[in-house]
């Protein structure tokens, strides 16, 4: 398997994690994930890859719902804590870009939604 985008290998990892947790392959309605702005993940590429991978691996055609979080930062000049998704903007209080990143690398599969009515007929 050639993974031209790393989102393709990540989509495989997601179905592996879901399959392992559920203990079987189930047609999924929805997959809820969290992606931080420093995870290095392109949400659009991941959506594109995931639908294909999920279908070919027997998980139906689930909708991928991405909770895009903001990074948490602390200004090293005035100690203000703030959130950001793009790093061009400085501190909202003093404008400084001297800061420490507290979070923003999240990438988790949070939950899956299964229609049990449909699942019985799979």
């Amino acid at each position: 398997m050639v993974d031209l985008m790393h989102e393709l290998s990540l989509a495989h990892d997601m179905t592996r994690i879901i399959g392992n947790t559920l203990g079987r392959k189930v047609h999924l309605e929805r997959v809820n994930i969290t992606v931080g702005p420093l995870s290095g993940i392109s949400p659009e590429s991941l959506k594109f890859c995931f639908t294909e991978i999920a279908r070919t691996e027997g998980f139906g055609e689930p909708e991928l719902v991405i909770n895009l979080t903001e990074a948490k930062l602390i200004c090293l000049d005035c100690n203000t804590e703030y959130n950001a998704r793009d790093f061009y903007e400085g501190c909202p209080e003093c404008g400084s870009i001297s800061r420490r990143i507290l979070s923003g690398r999240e990438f988790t599969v949070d939950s899956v939604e299964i229609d049990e009515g449909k699942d019985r007929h799979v």
Partner: protein
Amino acid sequence: MKGKTDMCDDTVEVDISTPVMDKNDRFAASNRKLFNEKKLYTLNLISSPGAGKTSVLESMARFFGGRMAVIEGDVQTRRDADRIEKAGCQAWQIETGGACHLDAQAVNHALGHMNLSPEELELLAIENVGNLICPSGYDLGEDMRIGLLSIPEGDDKILKYPSLFSSINVLLINKMDLIPYLNFDLDRAIEECRSLSPEVEVFTVSARTGEGMEEFCKFVESSFS
């Protein structure tokens, strides 16, 4: 199953709460254990294609000689490994066959092929696939992550690729011999890098002329000796 929540009709939500990088992180931990056992200090060198990773490693190979081994990650060809061997170091080529990054499992596999027993060996440098995005999310088990940026790429690249430049320990600015010919604002690049990694160490070098390379190599050496 970790938990179920009844939703409308027949739909149930099942809690998964698992980091997607869990498998990579397990391999990274296993690599880290091996590096500790072998007393190998490990570098992960990341840049865009053509920034000069292999040239920097050739220059390092001349400084460290048999004390350093190199893992080369490329989509195709073992050309880079040949260059490193010529410069005086053991090198193992990973051909990813299309993948845009190295993961910890590929490094783990490469380690199985390398001779890590020489008494003098104390440094392992991993040259990642040329890419500023995909490699940034993959811990390989390294001690030091180096982001390499070359002058012709421009001084505005750091904030465009925050996932990488927020995760590095060292910023290595290469091709300094070209700075008289290009509008590259060194202070801007360094300030923006510190805005993502406040403790980052910065070195300016030219792998071609050798400028700054000895200072950088001595810094790497001081990190493990």
